[in-house]
Structures are given as C-alpha cells and as structure tokens.
C-alpha cells in the first residue's frame, strides 16, 4: 500500500510540474507584448544571447562542414556519386544538423547563462524586490530574454548551415577537387527553398522557444541556494537537449514523411 501511495504521489508531482510549466509558459506569452514595447531590453539580450554565441556557432559549423564533406566523400565515391557531395551535405545541414546542433550548442552556451543569471537574481532576492516595486519580473526580466532567444536561434542556425556549406565547399573543391560549378548547381537542383530551407528555419524557431523557455523556467523556479542554482543549470542543459532531440524527431516525421 505504501509503494502504491508513493507511486501515486510521484505521478501527481510529475503532472503538477508539467502543469506548472505550461501555466508559466502561458504567462510568459501573455507578457510578451510588454517586451515588444520596450525593445531596447530585447536588443541588449540579443547581444548577450546572439552575438556572444556567434563564435562557437560559426566555429562548430565550419568544423561540421569540413568533416561532413570528407566523410560523405568517402561514402559516396564508393558508388561513383562523389559529384552529389554538395547536395548531401546541404540537405544534412539545412534539414537536421543546422537546427539541432545549433540548439544543443545554444542550450550549453546561452541557456546555462540565462538560468544562472536568473537563478542568482532570485537568490539575491532581486526578483522579489521588483515585485515589491510593483514591477512584474516576468515582463521586465524574462520576456525580453525569451524574445531575444527565439529571434536569435533561427539566425544562428542559418549561419551554422551557411558556414557549414562553405566549409564543405572548401574541402570539396579545394581538397578533393570536385568541380565548383557542379557543387553549387546540384544543390540548386535538389534543395527546395520552402520544403528544405523553410522547414529548417521553422525547426530552429521551435527549438529556440524550447531552449529559451526551459532555461528561463529553470532559472525562475530554482531553489534560491548555490546548490539549487547549480542543479538548475545542469537541468537546463539536460532537459533542453532531450526536448530538442525528441521534438526534432516529431517535426521531421511531420515535415518530411510525405515524400
């Protein structure tokens, strides 16, 4: 009987957590217009979230492009299809790796700093102080960060894919010796703007919502102690990564299964 009660209590706790998160999300959406009215705050957060993530995103994109071109070449040349290297790399990056790897890096680079910042604000009772001054901390602190994260993610993902394709071009044309004109023309024949590039951008926008929301929620709901903040930061990375991967599968199944 005790075990049954423990199971029930656990299930209720999990459900309560989910419900709490969902309500928090709705609250956040409701205060978003207030962030739009003070766009200066969003710009500052764009700098913290977007600009400062640029270097790691570009470096990883370039590396992924290099490696992808080499590996795909070894696989494709077996079938005498080395010419389609550009197409394979392009589709891999634009559809999957661009949005997903950007989101994972984003969770590690920007999500953790958001959680830690807000967690420390809470630990230092700054959020409570704001409430005392009749300022809604959600509108003043969370909403600009949320908006900035959601705006920055598709841009970062597009840059990741672009630099990856350029990296693949460097390897394919410079190192392997595939014809440059062919490299681009086969991509223009095989990649559709709306189906491939468009869906990739939609994906990265969804991932932007997931990563930023998880980071903000974990920061806002953290236990206001040093251990609590550390725990919340870890949870941010784990939860947003898992959520992104799960969501990626669902989105891929919805977007690309009909063909």
């Amino acid at each position, binding site marked *: 009987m005790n075990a049954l009660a423990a199971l029930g209590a656990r299930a209720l706790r999990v459900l309560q957590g989910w419900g709490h998160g969902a309500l928090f999300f709705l609250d956040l959406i409701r205060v978003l217009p207030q962030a739009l009215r003070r766009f200066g705050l969003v710009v500052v957060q*764009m*700098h913290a979230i*977007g600009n400062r993530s640029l270097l790691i995103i570009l470096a990883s994109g370039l590396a992924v492009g290099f490696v992808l071109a080499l590996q795909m070449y070894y696989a494709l040349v077996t079938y005498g299809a080395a010419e389609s290297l550009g197409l394979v790399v392009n589709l891999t990056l*634009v559809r999957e790796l661009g949005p997903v790897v950007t989101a994972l890096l984003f969770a590690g680079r920007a999500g953790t700093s958001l959680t830690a910042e807000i967690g420390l604000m809470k630990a230092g009772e700054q959020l409570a102080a704001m409430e005392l001054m009749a300022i809604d901390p959600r509108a003043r602190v969370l909403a600009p960060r949320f908006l900035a994260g959601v705006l920055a993610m598709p841009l970062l993902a597009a*840059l990741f894919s672009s630099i990856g394709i350029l990296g693949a071009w460097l390897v394919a044309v410079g190192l392997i010796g595939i014809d440059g004109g062919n490299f681009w023309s086969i*991509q*223009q*024949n095989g*990649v559709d703007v709306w189906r491939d590039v468009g869906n990739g951008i939609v994906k990265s926008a969804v991932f932007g919502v997931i990563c930023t929301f998880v980071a903000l929620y974990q920061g806002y709901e953290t236990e206001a102690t040093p251990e609590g903040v550390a725990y919340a930061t870890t949870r941010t990375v784990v939860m947003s990564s898992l959520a992104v991967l799960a969501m990626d599968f669902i989105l891929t199944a919805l977007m690309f299964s009909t063909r």
Partner: protein
Amino acid sequence: MSKRSIEILVGLFVLLGLGGVLFLALKAANLTTMSNGDTYPLTANFDNIGGLKARAPVRSAGVVVGRITGISLDPKTFQGVVTLEVSRRFEFPKDSSAKILTAGLLGDQYIGIEPGGDMANLAAGDTIKQTQSAVVLENLIGQFLFNKAAEAGSGDAAGSKP
C-alpha cells in the same frame, strides 16, 4: 559597453543572420532557378509513370522548361495523369510528344518534350496526345528473357528438322 555600440553589434548580427538565410535560399537552394510566375498548365496521360515525382523537371532538348505539379490516376482509363507547368516563353506544337526519361543510368526521372511539326501550338490546359511511358526495368528484363526463350525454342526446332 555603451548602448549604441551594443545596438550596432546586434544590428550586425541580425544582418549576418539574414545574409545566411539569403545565402541558403539563393546560392544553396532553388530560389533562383525556380520558374517564376509565367507558366501555363498542360496534362499528359501515361500508361505507366514509373518513378516520376511531383516537382520533377520538364525538359526539351535537355533544357529545363517547366516542372511537374501533380500526378494522379484517371479512375476510368487507369492511366497516370501528369500535370505540367511550362514556362510561357516556350510554346510547343500540338503534335509534340512527351516521354518519361531517366537522367543517367539510375538518376531521377523527368519528362522530355519532343516538338512536333504542327502549325498550331499547345494552349493552356491542353493534353499532350502522344506519350511514351517510363521504362520499367522488370518489364524490360522480362521481355529480354522471353525473347531469349523464344529464340532458344525456335533454334531447337530449326535444329531438329533436318
């Protein structure tokens, strides 16, 4: 850092990101090669469309002149009905023929239009009368084996007579 320099940096970031999107759309995808606007529809009925897919190119003399927009099955004749969008710049004679061809040995299939000699041109919504279905490898192999067997049979018959 002053507010203004932050704003400039963020502006640069947004520009860079939009540049990335533009690069993906223009250089690494088909936005530039997509036939824009001025097209007219044609249909063609095939006994067998093979592996033809929507959005496959329509070529004449190897040059892309349009795209396939839809494929369906005629419920009465059980023929595959393929709808094409052909660029307005190209008008084909009424007795042109459409073939389903394959790019390379194992490449994607596309429709090749061979112009005829009629004075009148195909108008929007017309059907291409003369069509040639896709080559299905299984049928080809079956036919080849059948011919071989028939040859062997007649060879035996010829050999046993004298």
